[in-house]
């Protein structure tokens, strides 16, 4: 996910430069089982999907070669484009909210880590991570329901006009799903960032204070650069969660109302198993994979230590 530290990278290079033919053989021998699993469960399915994406096939009967028609459909069909767009909108919620809040929390509890305040904060924020996603999805569906706590709260503070069935609302369903995802991912990001900030030498902050830095400068010049690796991991994981989201949407809205919350992951499932369009589903899957790779490539580049 992140690039390995320099020392580690050097060690990884050692067998190549120094290893004899024999030790290289031994290395392959040790790698082989893992590679076999990787091939069987990752490479082969990937190749199959790629192959299917050029077929017109219902999954049972005779398959016919279909050229790039499936790809043309994925990239031109307005519904499918909207679905892909939804995924990118979710990135805004799944990534931005947890990373920003995580950074804020990490900055605030830096220096209080040992105290009960730090422990309590970490535990509370990590809690969503240990709750099964399905349970979280259901709980949030109730909270967003017409009579759920969200609306109760709004009515209690006199904003009854705002109350609505959030997950059934054409405008608000997608943001509501985004909030659920943000809530789920917040714990992970906070833990990563809080752990990362403890590794920053505290005397850097002291030196900065003597240099005249205000809290804002400390954040910009010390915390952010010091957390670059951790931020990159958070962004990578959350971007993938958003673009390849399935479970939260499936439980909360099933893609509705209409297709306002439909995401590629769910659409692939629907196309393949409900509509029996395995070829189109595979093409969408390949496109999704490429979009994920394109989206996280710059993050990886950004995270790399510049020499």
């Amino acid at each position: 996910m992140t690039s390995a530290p320099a020392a580690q990278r050097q060690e990884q290079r050692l067998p190549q430069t120094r290893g004899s033919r024999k030790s290289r053989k031994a290395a392959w021998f040790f790698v082989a089982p893992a590679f076999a699993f990787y091939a069987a469960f990752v490479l082969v399915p990937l190749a199959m999907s790629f192959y299917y994406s050029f077929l017109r096939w219902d999954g049972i009967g005779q398959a016919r070669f279909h050229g790039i028609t499936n790809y043309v459909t994925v990239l031109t069909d307005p519904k499918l484009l909207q679905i892909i767009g939804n995924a990118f909108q979710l990135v805004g919620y799944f990534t931005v909210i947890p990373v920003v809040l995580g950074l804020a929390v990490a900055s605030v509890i830096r220096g209080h880590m040992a105290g009960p305040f730090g422990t309590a904060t970490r535990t509370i924020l990590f809690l969503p991570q240990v709750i099964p996603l399905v349970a979280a999805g259901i709980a949030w569906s109730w909270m967003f329901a017409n009579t759920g706590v969200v609306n109760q709260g709004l009515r209690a503070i006199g904003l009854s006009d705002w109350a609505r069935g959030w997950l059934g609302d054409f405008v608000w369903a997608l943001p509501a799903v985004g909030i659920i995802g943000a809530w789920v991912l917040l714990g992970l990001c906070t833990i990563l960032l809080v752990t990362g900030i403890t590794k920053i030498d505290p005397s850097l902050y002291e030196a900065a204070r003597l240099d005249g830095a205000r809290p804002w400068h400390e954040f910009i010049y010390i915390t952010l650069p010091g957390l670059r690796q951790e931020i990159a991991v958070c962004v990578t994981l959350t971007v993938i969660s958003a673009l390849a989201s399935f479970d939260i949407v499936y439980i909360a809205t099933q893609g509705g109302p209409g297709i306002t919350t439909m995401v590629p992951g769910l659409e692939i499932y629907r196309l393949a198993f409900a509509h029996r369009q395995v070829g189109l589903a595979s093409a969408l899957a390949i496109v999704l994979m490429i979009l994920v790779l394109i989206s996280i490539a710059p993050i990886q580049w950004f995270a790399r230590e510049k020499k």
Partner: protein
Amino acid sequence: MAGLTIRSVRKNYGPVPVIKGVDLDIAHGEFVVFVGPSGCGKSTLLRMIAGLEDITEGTIAIGDRVVNDVEPRDRGVAMVFQSYALYPHMSVYDNVGFGLKLAGTPKDVRDAKIREAARVLQMEHLLDRKPAQLSGGQRQRVAIGRAIVRQPDVLLFDEPLSNLDAALRGDMRMELARLHKDLDATMIYVTHDQVEAMTLADKIVVLDGGVVQQVGTPLELYNKPANLFVAGFIGAPNMNLVAGTVDAINAGELTIALGATKVRVAIEGATSLKAGDAVTLGVRPHALTADASGPLKGIVQLIEQLGNETVVRVKLAEGEEITAVLPGQSGHAVGAPITLAFDPASAHLFGTDQLRVG
């Protein structure tokens, strides 16, 4: 112009007192060294001056301004950390210029100041590097450069040389002495290293248990330690401290009985000691000489040949062990008897209250 005035300063961490009432006057331009054993509160005191720790009680004034509630950036102090604390993602140039940049110094002025600091510290060729690409000594230079570039009134150093090897430490020590001469700044320097303290300081402050034990020039501390702690702490190897009793009092001189052995110790002025009082005799290893007519008889336990001198560990007839540093390559042998003498004027006496007598 900024001296420092510390008045009745205390620091507690929760219920634990760490600094227990320190009073100190530091004149402008002085090089003051804090020494003391680990955990005695040297860093804490330094950090309170910097503004990185709250002051529980008392006042610290820089110049004639009490700075208890002044932010670190407004105190006119700069600090060099033991870990260097260089900003890892910034080049040396940006590290040195960071404070100026935050202060809104115009770019050309900033550039001139950075280059001037780099020239003074002979690190112009390092300006484009990142801290990770520097050796320990070079990092130290950068850290010092960052501290001096804003021309602070007071420069603070917390064991800046402790991560360097012996040779480099020697070089940097001279460099710091030169820097102190060139800069018009008060310097406060924390160290464990006696050689650093003795060579650099105009004034040494010996701390123990959060209390100032003695303040003085290096030679004052060496020649007239105010109490047993300072006597044992300053000087290497440590001063020999042997328990005895007052045997007889003559003008300007006492006879001290160490068991059956009688030794003479010169004292200045009158003394309140009476015959029979318990005292501790202090004699520096370098003050002892091998002298067949001397009063101290013992057996050689251990010999360390250093070439220019010989360190001899001697077990006295009374059972106490003392260390003598004899000039040259002495021909003593382990297990052989030895007789030692010392000049009565070079000995130190401490009363039961641990304070110096005479």
